[in-house]
């Protein structure tokens, strides 16, 4: 990984709302890699993406941006990335064609629609030009999501952040979408940060995974390591306690939502909890992985 370009580096980022806070977030994004953010609902995934979105634009000191810039219509230099919020596909304008909306968005970035590039991207998506000549309500749910992705890559960003991009897609559409994301990252060297609650979707698409709970990153691993040998008990729970045909005999009557103000957020639910977990737990680095759990203290 040493020879690769680092696009975004976040060091000790903190942020708080009145009743929620992100604590000590460290994230590094390399060129052409896909990063997953995995966590239960309310763990701060969306907040993190929103904070990254505003902080990169406002040159926050805790972040280093190396992903290049574009000039907007007001001739202002802006970091070249795209943030796709959760319901982006449902927020397409029902009145105009998809292609007009794409042109409109590109105009704000001082970009004209490059027909060659468009055709190249469309053939990669496996779609015809007729798809984007339609109005969004005449597209299938999967096509709407692909239109949003197309809009994002036509802006030629170096990083795309997507918040739960596959909700409301069926399994065939989800698979198609995830395969296209992987292809874009590989062929066009665009990095992705993708958040989600489903470990299957996140592990399928990502190269590296940040596991979050209560506004903290509890584990960072490559996907293969995370799947074969999860370090944090919370990660293990996320992977194992997943409804499926294989887990039909498992039941659970313990809802996981509460956060502790101090100590490990998973303390109340953890089978290995000890008194040490009540005070602040630091990140431990283990080979190329990190984990915020006292089991791994050395």
């Amino acid at each position, binding site marked *: 990984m040493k020879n690769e370009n680092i696009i975004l580096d976040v060091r000790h980022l903190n942020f708080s709302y009145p009743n929620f806070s992100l604590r000590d977030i460290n994230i590094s994004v390399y060129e052409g890699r896909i990063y997953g953010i995995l966590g239960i609902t309310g763990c701060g995934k969306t907040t993190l993406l929103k904070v990254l979105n505003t902080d990169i634009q406002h040159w926050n000191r805790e972040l280093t941006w190396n992903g290049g810039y574009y000039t907007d219509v007001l001739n202002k230099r802006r970091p070249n990335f795209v943030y796709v919020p959760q319901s982006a596909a449902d927020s397409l304008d029902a009145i105009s064609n998809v292609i007009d909306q794409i042109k409109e968005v590109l105009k704000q970035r001082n970009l004209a629609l490059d027909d060659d590039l468009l055709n190249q991207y469309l053939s990669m998506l496996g779609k015809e030009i007729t798809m984007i000549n339609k109005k969004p309500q005449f597209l299938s*749910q999967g096509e709407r999501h692909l239109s949003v992705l197309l809009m994002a890559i036509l802006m030629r960003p170096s990083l795309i952040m997507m918040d739960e991009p596959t909700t409301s897609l*069926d399994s065939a559409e989800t698979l198609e979408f995830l395969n296209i994301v992987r292809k874009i990252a590989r062929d066009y060297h665009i990095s992705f940060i993708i958040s989600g609650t489903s470990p299957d979707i996140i*592990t399928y698409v990502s190269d590296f995974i940040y596991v979050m709970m209560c506004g903290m990153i509890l584990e960072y691993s490559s*996907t*293969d390591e995370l799947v074969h040998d999860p370090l944090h008990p919370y990660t293990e729970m996320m992977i194992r306690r997943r*409804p499926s045909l294989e887990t039909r005999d498992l039941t659970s009557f313990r809802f*996981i939502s509460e956060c502790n103000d101090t100590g490990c957020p998973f303390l109340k639910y953890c089978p290995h909890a000890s008194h040490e977990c009540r005070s602040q737990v630091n990140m431990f680095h283990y080979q190329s992985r990190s984990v915020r759990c006292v089991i791994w203290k050395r």
Partner: protein
Amino acid sequence: MEEIAISAEGINKTYLDRVSMMRWKRRDIIKNFSYDFRSRVIYGIIGASGSGKTTLANILAGFDNPDSGSLLYFGKPAGHSNKKIRNIFQDTFKFLNPLNSVNWYIESVSKIISDRHIIENLLYTVGLEPERFGNMEIEKLSGGQRQRLAFAMVMAQLPDILILDEPFSMIDPPNSMVLFSVIKKYLKEGTVIYIDHNLDRVAYLCDHVIAFDNGNIIEEGDTYSVFRRPETDYVKGLIDASRLISSRINV
């Protein structure tokens, strides 16, 4: 004792799409759907998006009228049945007033159930402790919290028929397992019709799977047989895609 909870006979539903100023195109959503849903069975309805699952749920729950066909609940038409038919849909703002508090809903539900403890216990189980969340207005709750409140309110009434249309779309997998466990524990006698595009969740909860495409059933059977040996290419495609997505995690 097993009986027929919902008997649907020849249900049709057509929407009109506007193609231009004066022209409308017919779009058949449900085509001649007939099925007997039995009691004590959890049914799962699967299908690609746009296959008519949600329209079917609306019709079965009485939110939408079919263009033709008949629906009987325990042998009687809707409105003449004394059985409890309840539903939870994805969009909880459809039936939760954003300005009411959680306590208001607890009180309302307590009036129609025999034992107030049921609703309180359920709220504890789904992580909405009445002491902490009681005074909160619905609009202050997150999407997942609203879905859990709706779930607890409906489950406390121990419905005879429960129709769920993507009820847990905003709840993560480990926590949805809690809600599924509650359904399995409390509704042993009832009929549950569960609709979701997430096949893993259907496989976990349901006893019997109905695959829906183009407005009608194309395949049905016991969960294990449908998931292990799907008969149609359509269902096989959906199941294979789902299996491939979870291929890295199921090592």
